């Protein structure tokens, strides 16, 4: 589970994925939908599946995407928000 401010995210148990040569395909186990992630978003997904800490993910994403850490954080947060909206991740709001 990776936290962002007061919201934490986890991969939905209904989300299946496949690592392809040039990205990742997310498939919903129950609904008839899928999406393709290209890099660097695919790398962000891969890091997410490894249960790394938010800090570790930002550092690694910065290296992979060849951006500074602030940009990597923005990239990661954008991905998390989008994937949360689309139901690939579940959100938990911390009290």
């Amino acid at each position, binding site marked *: 589970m990776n936290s962002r401010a007061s919201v934490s995210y*986890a*991969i*939905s*148990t209904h*989300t*299946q*994925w*496949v*690592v*392809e*040569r*040039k*990205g990742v*395909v997310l*498939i*919903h*186990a129950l609904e*008839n*939908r*899928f999406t*393709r992630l290209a890099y660097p978003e695919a790398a962000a997904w891969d890091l997410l*599946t*490894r*249960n790394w800490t938010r800090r570790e993910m930002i550092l690694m994403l910065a290296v992979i995407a060849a951006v500074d850490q602030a940009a990597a954080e923005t990239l990661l947060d954008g991905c998390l928000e989008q994937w949360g909206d689309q139901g690939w991740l579940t959100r938990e709001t911390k009290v």
Partner: protein
Amino acid sequence: MSNISITSTCSRSCVYCFARTGSEKPRYISAERFEAALTFLQRSGLSRVRLLGGEPTLHPQFNPFLDAIEVCGLKLLLFSNGRMTEKVLERLLGFPQDRLTILLNVHGDDDFQSDESCNAVIKVLRHLGANVMLGCNLYSPSINPDFILALIHKFGLIPEVRLGLAHPRVGAANRFLHPRHYRTVGARIGALAAKMQARGLRLELDCGFTPCMFDENELRLLKRLGAVPGKRCNPLPDLLPDGRFIPCYPLADVVHVDWRDDDDCKSIQARMIKKLERYRQIGVFSDCGECPLRHENICNGGCLAAAMMRLRQIPSSACPSEPLARRASAKKRAFVSEISTEPCRHHGVQSVGKQTWAIPYIDQPLSFWQDIQKRWGASIQEVYPPLPHIDLPSGRPPQKTAFLDAFLDNCPFPVGLLINPIVLPRPVDHIAPRVVQQIGRWRETTRVNSVTVANYSLAVRIKETFPDLDVTASVLMDIASPQQAMLLNGVCDALVPSSRVMRDINVFGAIRQAYTGAIRLMVNEGCLPGCVFRAQHFYEMAFCRHVPESLCRELLDKAPWMRLTGAWVLPQHLHLFDHIVDQFKLSGRVTLQNPNKYKRVLQAYMERASLTPNAIGGGPASVLVDMHIDEDFYRHTLECGQNCHACDRCRVYYEKAVSEPADMAFSVTGGH
């Protein structure tokens, strides 16, 4: 088309069977449901009933079902293992022969050896041969279906063969042909197809075959035989005894649709296609998504069930990225997971010395490797196996591979891929894309630690594609000077210096200084430095099917002392390389095939115990007689500069060693 499975009972227990789960209830289709199924087929405009199982002839109502089919005027395709009763055989003989086809699956010659059930199969072939088409499900790359051709001729069978791939049943643990073996199997089918063409036979390929299993010549040949791979993975509604429709057995636990009264084949198929649509995005290989054959609708990515084995999902226990297939058989694989998921360096006893080891694959059961892991796992970096599904040779003759599948599936060590023929058979631009593709496939299924290559350009291509994969410059790249080594900085993560300089510690040290990666030393190959036969020898090894004779034997008969100058180091002398070498490599795919000898030699190197040079499993140029090698003498050969024209020290040492008993001639050096 639609299949009707009338029973889940079978008289065989094939390891690859994807129909057997024990979950389908009831085990036999009811007479009412069978009658409704015939109506369904007719409403769907289908003129042929395809009966399968289990073994359909085991249904107690089988003969009455045949009566009903005959009355309806339908044709019959019966999928059977041929082990049927006399009563069933008689009924089949009475069925209109122009409407009857029996598809009889056979595994090999052993189907026709001894027992009574085999006699029943032979009886079917004798009496119904003209209606029998043989099929074979390929569940292992070692299956050779050539035996079918002799059976067709002997019994006058339908001049057509149906080949199938054994696919995984999603959620089950049946044996299946892993996609990493597809190319190997494709080549075998290509060879079979050539024989079939010569005999005027036709070939049918069942679902899941992909065009990339075959080369261009093989594809042309298949087309001439009427077999086109690539497009046959569409839901073909199979009606189960319990009244559910499934797209196929491998997907039985993923998708099923219930039968509505007004359904016909097309409406059921449409519902299945809809349910499976999202999974069509993936293929059996990670590069299927970019494949032009997929985009041109020539191939649909192979068997969907095999593709779904690549799916990952967070299980409810929150264990990250566990493949679905592994979850399904977690109990069965529990032990395997225990020994394979942790990095190897956390197990076993640390050897003497800080270096890690690459060791050769020999064809032994898994217990052999588990023992090695237990004893020396902490120091073993990788095992290098033969590469039956990479087009390029590994620079060595073919090896036995009876246990290779089990090794790759459950290997406790990462593997190192050796793609190092001494010359590439075609320009590197032609070869590199396919090699890269095949490495990618290996990585999907196996923990690949490194790739060893002998061609610089190929190394560059591999590194560009897989920056996280260690690339090692093979000894056959012949790196013998610091300036050569510098060229590899940033390209190769490790290099094996040429055997020309292994016994020249000064050059070796200079390479160490020039090179930023790891230095790997082959400890027991034994080749002569700068051998005049080296290119020819390794060419023959890589591209011929036989193990070549030793080309250097005649030369060494004239000057046997030269064996002392070869590329080898005894276990007790490894410490002389400690300041230069990061990794050691044990050779011996040919010379260490005896498992006891393999372990003895490995143990000696791990513990740096004393061995004589004839006991290290060296190649043809190594020392063949029992003699002790004094450390001072060996150290001298590392520092002498190989000025053999002006020195006779090795000759004198050798002649003295062979003329006097070993234990009297020299003192035995101890381990360090």
